[in-house]
């Protein structure tokens, strides 16, 4: 078992990076890896509630984030500074997350075995 961190830095909808990152996160968890998610920069936009990707030909993979606890993915960290930059308050987010500062993210990246950036 390895500690795998999936880091989301790209926005949802415009590219499929987030979707392919989430696919990997869920599969890693079902392969019994210790998976954590980190959202930074535009990646924090994945966490907004009330998204409707079907309107623009996308698949609603965003709602799959609600299933993270079923996969035992409990470590979901969000960069405090990125949330502030994009003007997002806690109330706008769709799932429970741990809001952390830059130092905490640095420490987390250091603590895991591998980091995959999407």
């Amino acid at each position, binding site marked *: 078992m390895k500690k795998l961190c999936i880091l989301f*830095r790209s926005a949802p909808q415009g590219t499929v990076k987030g979707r392919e990152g989430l696919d990997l996160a869920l599969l890693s968890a079902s392969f019994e890896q210790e998976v954590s998610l980190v959202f*930074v*920069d*535009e990646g924090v936009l994945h966490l907004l509630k009330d998204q409707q990707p079907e309107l623009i030909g996308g698949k609603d993979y965003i709602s799959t984030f609600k299933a993270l606890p079923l996969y035992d993915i409990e470590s979901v960290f969000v960069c405090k*500074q990125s949330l502030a930059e994009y003007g997002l308050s806690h109330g706008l987010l769709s799932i429970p997350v741990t809001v952390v500062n*830059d130092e905490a*993210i*640095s420490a987390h*990246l*250091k603590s*895991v*075995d*591998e*980091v995959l*950036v999407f």
Partner: protein
Amino acid sequence: MILHHIQTSPNRDNALKLCLRYACKEDAILLSSDGVNALLLRQWAMALSPFKLMVLKDDVIARGLTERLSNVCLIDYNEFVAQALLHDKVITW
């Protein structure tokens, strides 16, 4: 110790900016592909200066930047492999 790997230009992509935000002072940064262009811009060269910095040699030579980047640490692929193992992990941003 992490080896941060940047492959994209800082003018096109936020990879370098994010790497610098979360890198620790003992980490190293490797620039490859258009990532090497960061060193031509004063603001990024300054931001990179506190870190141990490596640049992929062939990507510098291919871009005609050998003279312009004469004072940086150029590495070949054998050294890239060695550095990947010397560090605890490689994060490609």
